[in-house]
């Protein structure tokens, strides 16, 4: 055979495209629409197939958080089949989920978020020079350290899961691995390297234990000024520069938060049921309406499609009652009628409300006074939400705040594995409905399954980005990112970097293009990719 040589560009694989269209009037965003520009129909692949198809198909939905999809897919089958889960199985699933989330923190911070702070918009700020020196893409002093460290946690995932990304080691009834002492020792060593290379010396400037003593916003500010090492750490700089650059002044969002929670406790979910899930979580689930906490009930989740390109369902259906996604006729961004259908994303609602999913939702749930002794109890973000409210700054701080705690969890769970114990209990397959959920790095992720006649009748995936980038609902109320953009002050309409910063603070899992228009004339002023 002849092998041809030519210059060619490889396939670009994106999880999807998101177009953000904003209208600017007198230096402020007056209208904002988010358009998911790609139909995602993974659920359709699974209809009529073996109930375990979700274990293979859903981890391929995303090249970033496949482990989180696997956690959901195996959990949904656990509840549908009434499996038995050994403590080891729950520990190894939690370690996998935690490793994936831990990886995402430095990777997202350095590769995605911090480079925005080096934008010329902030050139007149006193800390700008230091930010550029440290966090400029490729050449920043700590950019490379953070990015290189981000590769470590998923090595732990690969030890137990066989590979990362796209493993299928979590299965209904447990996990398909039986680690040895060598694996556990190796995992401890990788974890220690993550701490010693980046987490303590570069990120915190202090020990994990010292950082975890912070309980209030005042504690946090006092921590920054406690010594030079903390003040000059990357986190110290983020707090000082974030406030100096005014990141706490915009990007509020809907002010309501949803977390499905994660990390099922090794001794509290050995007989998995949907009803028993909330109590078994280490990172608690819940809905926070801005004032009060409410217990999470998956039956209060519904999706609206008035503004989405789906014609075969009514607004407000629970995922078990939704049809498999069938695309309706769509339009380009230019031709979209925003009073009608304008997105491939549905609009998820909790008890009728738009809600923000993500690390900020999680750390707010950690401050829920009703959390039990085996659950995370951390009042910090309850205080921060009261004192600062939600914003770009609060959202970013929430994400990085999780790293030390997740580190400690993985360390603890590794030491709790019983190498002589069971890892898998073969389940009995049966028809029925199941629900599995977790917290992906970007927020609440849930799978709903219905099995009939031994095959999948219905499968529904609701991702954190769907919660955040969804369009208006049946009552024309906007989604979280649409809301967060409204009222944002734009310094330079030809370079509306503020819009990008808001969108990036949510870290949506779609490649995002911002289109800024003049509200009076409708003329497109600028367009840039995030």
């Amino acid at each position, binding site marked *: 055979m002849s092998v*041809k040589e030519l210059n060619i*560009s490889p396939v670009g694989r994106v*999880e999807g495209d998101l177009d953000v269209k904003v209208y600017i009037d007198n230096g402020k965003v007056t209208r904002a629409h988010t358009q998911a520009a790609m139909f995602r129909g993974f659920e359709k692949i699974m209809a009529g197939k073996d109930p375990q198809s979700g274990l293979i198909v859903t981890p391929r939905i995303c090249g970033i958080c496949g482990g989180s999809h696997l956690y959901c897919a195996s959990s949904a089958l656990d509840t549908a089949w009434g499996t038995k889960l050994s403590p080891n199985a729950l520990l190894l699933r939690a370690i996998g989920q935690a490793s994936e989330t831990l990886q995402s923190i430095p990777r997202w911070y350095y590769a995605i978020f911090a480079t925005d702070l080096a934008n010329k918009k902030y050139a007149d700020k006193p800390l700008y020079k230091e930010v550029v020196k440290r966090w400029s893409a490729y050449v920043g002093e700590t950019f490379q350290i953070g990015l290189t460290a981000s590769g470590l946690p998923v090595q732990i995932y690969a030890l137990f899961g066989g590979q990362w*990304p796209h493993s299928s080691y979590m299965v209904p009834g447990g996990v398909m691995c039986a680690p040895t002492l060598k694996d556990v020792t190796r995992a401890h060593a990788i974890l220690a390297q993550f701490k010693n290379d980046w987490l303590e010396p570069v990120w915190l400037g202090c020990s994990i234990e010292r950082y975890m003593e912070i309980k209030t916003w005042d504690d946090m500010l006092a921590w920054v000024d406690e010594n030079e090492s903390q003040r000059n750490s990357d986190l110290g700089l983020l707090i000082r520069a974030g406030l100096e650059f005014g990141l706490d002044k915009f990007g509020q969002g809907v002010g309501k938060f949803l977390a499905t929670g994660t990390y099922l406790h090794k001794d509290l979910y050995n007989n998995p049921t949907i009803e028993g899930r909330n109590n078994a979580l280490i990172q608690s689930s819940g809905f926070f309406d801005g004032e009060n906490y409410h217990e999470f009930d998956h039956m209060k989740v519904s999706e609206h499609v008035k503004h989405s390109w789906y014609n075969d369902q009514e607004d407000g259906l629970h995922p078990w009652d939704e049809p498999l996604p069938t695309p309706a006729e769509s339009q380009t961004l230019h031709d979209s009628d925003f009073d009608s259908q304008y997105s491939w994303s549905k609009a998820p609602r909790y008890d009728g409300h738009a809600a923000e999913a993500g690390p900020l939702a999680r750390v707010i749930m950690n401050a829920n006074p009703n959390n039990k002794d085996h659950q995370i109890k951390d009042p910090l973000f309850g205080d921060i939400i009261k004192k600062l409210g939600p914003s770009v700054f609060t959202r970013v701080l929430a994400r990085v705040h999780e790293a030390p705690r997740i580190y400690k969890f993985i360390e603890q769970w590794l030491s709790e594995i019983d190498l002589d114990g069971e890892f898998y209990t073969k389940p009995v397959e049966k028809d029925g409905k199941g629900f599995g959920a977790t917290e992906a790095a970007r927020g609440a992720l849930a799978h709903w399954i219905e099995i009939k006649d031994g095959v999948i009748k219905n499968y529904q995936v609701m991702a954190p980005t769907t919660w955040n980038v969804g369009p208006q609902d049946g009552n024309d109320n906007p989604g979280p990112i649409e809301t967060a953009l409204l009222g944002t002050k734009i310094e330079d309409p030809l370079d509306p970097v503020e819009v990008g910063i808001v969108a990036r603070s949510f870290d949506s899992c779609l*490649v995002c293009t911002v289109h800024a228009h003049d509200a009076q004339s409708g003329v497109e002023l600028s367009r840039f*990719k995030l």
Partner: protein
Amino acid sequence: MKTAIMGFGNPVRSDDAIGIYVIEQLREKLPETERINIFDMGTAAFEVLFGLKGHSKIILVDAVLNSNEPVGTVFKVPAEEVMKAPQDDPLVFLHGMKWDQALSYTKKILRDEYPEDIQVYLVAIENTKLEVDLSDVVRKAGDKVVQHILEDLNQSIPK
């Protein structure tokens, strides 16, 4: 001398899976050795950065769309060809990176450790529907790539 073979693609997007098919075949055909690492890269291009480390020879296998050649055409491209127009956009995006971007990124980070010998095999495809089957013509092309890689390894890796 360590070799990394990386397959890219999504096994639930029809012919897009060809890179994964090739490495699965190679896993069966190659003897287990410390000197060859086979990676299922899936759709996580960013991981190239971590996979390259410690290898002196890299082989990448992927699908290619819109090549203006019939489906099933096999291309063998030196990586520097692919990187002629490296994507130097500092605004990387974790969810939409291509491995050519990842390579240019890696070059900046690994500097002296960046492997010299990078070979890319691409298979022309059209169908990326949400399905789990490869078309015959693309699978046959994948088998050719497997043969090529086996020959390449025979020549370059001393027994």
